[in-house]
C-alpha cells in the first residue's frame, strides 16, 4: 500500500487550481486587466465583464452590452533550499514556464432591468515543474493544469441604488501530474515514473448584491458557492515493471473546492478617482484531504491537506485623465496551507501582490487595459513536515504577471 499512497499524493494541487478564484495554490488574479491592476479590489464596482467573477450584481449597473476579452502571461519562478533531511543548503530552482490563460465575457442588457452575461475563464497550463531527477522527485516533478469556468449570469437592477445578481459556474478542468515512484526494496534500472491525466467537471453558483447608498460610496457583497469536482482519468507508469503490480489504469478523485465571499467598499471622492478596499474570505477548511481511487487494484490513496480558512485583502484605485486610466493596487493573500503540510507540489506562502496598470479608451466604444502584477510569496520554511512528505526546507517564490484586455462597449 505504501507505493500506492506515494503515487497519488501529487494530484492535490491540480484540482485546487481548478478554480481560478481561490486563494492558496496558484491562484492568480487575472480576471480582466482592469481589476487585476487594482489588486482585484472590484466587488463594489464590477463595472465591466469581470463582474462575472467579482460580483454578478455589477452587471445590473452596466448600461450597455459589452465584450471583454483578454489574456494574461504568467511566469512563476522560485526555488527550494533543502530538504533538511538531506542537505539544508542544497538549492533547486523551478523549471520556469510562462502560462497564458485567457478571459472572455459577453454581456447584454435584457428587458428593462435585467442584464445577462456569459463568460469563460481559461487559465491555460498553470503549474509547477521541478527537474526530473531532483531530490524531491518522489513527491513531484510536474503539475500542469487547464481549466474552464463557464459562467452564465443574470443581474437585476432593483432600483437606482441596488442591484442583485446570480450566476451558475460550470467548471471543466484537466490536469497532468508526474512524479517518480519510490520502490525501496529491490534494485530497479530506473524508478518507475507515474503520469496521471484527469478530467474534472463540477457545478456551482454565485450571488451578489451591489448597493450605492450615496453617489460617492458603493458596497458590494458577493458569494461563490463550494464546487464539488468529480475527476476521472488514467494513471500510467513508465517503465511499468509488471511484477510490481503498479496500479496503471483508471483513477478517480473527488474534492470540494471551497466557498468564497467578498465584501467591498468603493469610494469615489472625485469624479475621476475611484478607490476600493475588499476583504475576501475563503472557506478552505473544507479541503481536508485528497483521496484518489485506483480502479486497477481497488485501493484509495489518501493525501492529508488540512487546509485552513483564510482571507485576502485587496486595495486598489483608478485615476482617470481624459482617455487614460492609471491604476494601482495591492493585495495580501494569506496561505491556507499549514507549515507542516507544505510540499513542493504547491509551494504556498502568504503573498503580497503589487499591481500597476493603465487603461486607454481608444474610442467611445473600444478600450485597452494593461496590468502588471508582481506577486511575492513570503519566504517560508517548511518544518516538521508530515511523514508522507518528510521534506523540510525553505521555499522562495514569486510570480510575474502581465495582463492585457480589450473591451468593446455597444
Amino acid at each position, binding site marked *: 500500500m*505504501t507505493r500506492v*499512497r*506515494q503515487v497519488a*499524493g501529487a494530484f492535490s494541487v491540480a484540482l485546487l487550481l481548478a478554480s481560478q478564484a481561490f486563494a492558496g495554490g496558484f491562484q492568480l488574479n487575472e480576471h480582466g486587466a482592469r481589476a487585476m491592476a487594482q489588486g482585484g479590489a472590484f466587488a463594489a464596482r464590477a463595472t465591466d465583464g469581470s463582474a462575472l467573477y467579482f460580483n454578478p450584481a455589477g452587471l445590473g449597473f452596466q448600461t450597455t452590452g459589452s465584450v471583454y476579452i483578454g489574456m494574461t502571461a504568467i511566469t512563476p*519562478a*522560485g*526555488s*527550494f*533550499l533543502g*530538504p533538511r*533531511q*538531506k*542537505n*539544508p*543548503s*542544497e*538549492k533547486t*530552482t523551478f523549471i520556469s514556464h510562462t502560462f497564458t490563460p485567457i478571459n472572455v465575457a459577453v454581456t447584454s442588457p435584457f428587458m428593462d432591468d435585467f442584464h445577462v452575461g456569459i463568460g469563460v475563464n481559461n487559465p491555460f497550463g498553470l503549474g509547477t515543474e521541478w527537474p526530473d531527477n531532483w*531530490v*524531491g522527485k*518522489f*513527491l513531484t516533478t510536474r503539475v500542469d493544469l487547464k481549466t474552464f469556468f463557464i459562467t452564465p449570469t443574470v443581474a437585476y437592477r432593483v432600483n437606482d441604488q441596488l442591484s442583485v445578481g446570480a450566476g451558475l459556474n460550470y467548471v471543466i478542468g484537466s490536469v497532468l501530474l508526474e512524479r517518480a515512484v*519510490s*520502490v*525501496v*526494496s*529491490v*534494485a*530497479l*534500472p530506473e*524508478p518507475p515514473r507515474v503520469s496521471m491525466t484527469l478530467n474534472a467537471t463540477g457545478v456551482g453558483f454565485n450571488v451578489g448584491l451591489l448597493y450605492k447608498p450615496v453617489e460617492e460610496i458603493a458596497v458590494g457583497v458577493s458569494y461563490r458557492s463550494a464546487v464539488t469536482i468529480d475527476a476521472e482519468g488514467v494513471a500510467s507508469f513508465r517503465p511499468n*515493471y509488471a*511484477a*510490481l*503490480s503498479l496500479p496503471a489504469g483508471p483513477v478517480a478523485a473527488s474534492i470540494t473546492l471551497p466557498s468564497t465571499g467578498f465584501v467591498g467598499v468603493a469610494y469615489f471622492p472625485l469624479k475621476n478617482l475611484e478607490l476600493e478596499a475588499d476583504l475576501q474570505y475563503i472557506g478552505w477548511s473544507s479541503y481536508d484531504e485528497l483521496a484518489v481511487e485506483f480502479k486497477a487494484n481497488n485501493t484509495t490513496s489518501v493525501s492529508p491537506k488540512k487546509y485552513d480558512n483564510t482571507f485576502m485583502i485587496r486595495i486598489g484605485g483608478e485615476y482617470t*485623465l*481624459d*482617455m*487614460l486610466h*492609471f491604476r494601482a493596487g495591492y493585495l495580501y493573500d494569506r496561505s491556507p496551507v499549514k507549515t507542516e503540510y507544505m510540499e513542493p507540489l504547491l509551494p504556498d506562502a502568504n503573498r503580497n501582490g503589487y499591481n*500597476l*496598470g*493603465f487603461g*486607454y479608451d481608444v474610442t467611445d466604444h473600444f478600450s485597452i487595459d*494593461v496590468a*502588471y502584477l*508582481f506577486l511575492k510569496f513570503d*519566504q517560508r520554511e517548511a518544518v516538521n513536515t508530515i*511523514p*508522507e*512528505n*518528510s*521534506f523540510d526546507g*525553505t521555499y*522562495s*517564490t*514569486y510570480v*510575474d504577471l*502581465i495582463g492585457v484586455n480589450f473591451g468593446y462597449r455597444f
Partner: protein
Amino acid sequence: MKALKPTLVAVVVLAAAYYAGCVDAGPAALGPGLGNATVTKYVAIGNSLTAGYQSNGLYKSAQDYSFPNLIAGQLRLAGANLPTFEQPYYSDPGTPGADGKASRYEIISLAGPVIGPKGLAPGVPTNLALARPYDNLGIPGSVVFDLLDTTSFLAKAGPPRNNPLFSLVLRNPAFGNNMLSQAAALRPDLVTFWLGNNDVLGYATSGGASPATPTPPATFTALYGQALDALRAALPNAKIVVANIPDVTVIPFFTTLGPKIRPSLPAGVTLRYQKHGETGVATGIAPLTDNSVLICLTGSAYTTYLGRPSGKWYRDKGYPALPPGIDTTQPFGFHPQNPWPDALTLDADEVNTCATTIAAFNASIAAAAAARNAAVVDINGFLNGVKAGGYSWAGQKYTVDYVSGGLFSLDGVHPSSRGAGIIANQFIKTMNASFGMTLSYVDLMSLPGIPAPVAKAAGGLPVIPPEAFAELEMLWGAR
C-alpha cells in the same frame, strides 16, 4: 496629445517592473561543512555492520555502501581531505562459505520467494597490497573482547572461531595485532566504534541454543570500558562516535516467519515449541498472535513440514538418535512430541533475556562513552521508532520488514545498502550535533536496492535452505 507623455511613462514603468521582477528568488546556498573541526583521517572499528556485510556475504558491491564509506563520502563533500577510504575489498560475488562457493544470498526464484546462495565461484580479495592498515577495520564476527585481544588473529581462522575474516581485514601482524593497534597506527582524528551486537546476537540467532547465554552484562561492561579506555588512551584528541545495540524485535530475522506462519495454522491449532533448554518433549505453546515468541529465519525451510510427520530437522542436524520422547510420526510443530525446535525459536524467556541484556549493554555503552568523551548514536531508539512507524524520507517510506521494507538485506540481519545509508545518516546527525559539523545527509534512493530479477517484493513465506545459514553461524558461533 497631452496624454501621450503619461502614457509613455506608464508603459515604461510597467515594462521596467516586469523585467525587474526577474530577481533571483531565495537565499544563497551555504554548503555542507565541518564547522571548526578538521578531518584528515577517519577510521571505522566494528563488526559486520561496519564492514558492509550484506545478505550473508562480504563483497565489493556491498562494501562500497558500508556506512563508514558513506560517511567518508559526506565528509569529503564537506571539505575533509580524505582522498581515499580504504576497505578490505573482496570482489563480487564475495567470500566463500564452508562449501567453497560464494555464500552471498540472492533471490533465486520469485515463487516463494526462494532465497539462498547460487553456488557461484567466490571472489578474491582485491586490496591486499595496501601498505598500511585499512581505514575500515570492521571485522564480521568480532566481539568487544577482540578489540583488545593480543593473541594471534591469524589463528582465529581455525577452531574455535573458524573465522577467516580476521586475516582478511587485519592481514599482517606487523600492522598491529588487533583492530585497536591498527587503528592507532593510522592516527585518525575521527573514529566510529560499533561493537557489542555479536555479544548478544550469537545467543539470539541460535534460538538461545548455542551459546546458551549472551555475554554476561558485567563482563560486557568491563570489556567495553577497557576497550574505550584503550581507544581513548591511544587517540587522546580524536573525535570518537560509538553506537548502541538494537533490540532483536526490530530485526526481520526474528520477526518475519512468526506472522507468516500464524495464518497457516489450522483452526484451533497452536505451534508447539521447545522452550529454552528443552531437548525432548516440548512444553511451549504459541498461538503466534504477538511477539512474545519469535521464530528465527533459520526455520524458513522447515515451515513446509509443519503438520506433517517429519524428522527432517533431526536428520539435517545429524542426530545419531532421536532425543528421548521425540516421536516423528506426530505432526511436526503441532504436537509436543514432535515440536518446533528450541534452536529455531526465541521463547518468551529468551526474548526477555535479549531485552534485559541489550538494555544493560546500552546502559554500559552510554556510561562508558560519557566518561571518555565519545558521542553516542542511539541506534536502538532509532530502530524502535522505525519499527513502530516506519521511516519516511523525502517521499519514501522504509520499514523493518524483510526485503520489502528496504532496510535489511536478504539475511534478515544485516542492513541493505539503503539501510546502511540510514545508519550513516544517524551517525551524521550525531556528529553534526556533537561536533558542530554541518554534514549533509546521504540521499537514500541514490543507493542501490537489493538485486532481484525485477519482481514482486517478497510477499509469501521466504524459503531459505538451512545450509545457507552456516556463514552466519560461523560469525556468531561459540568461542
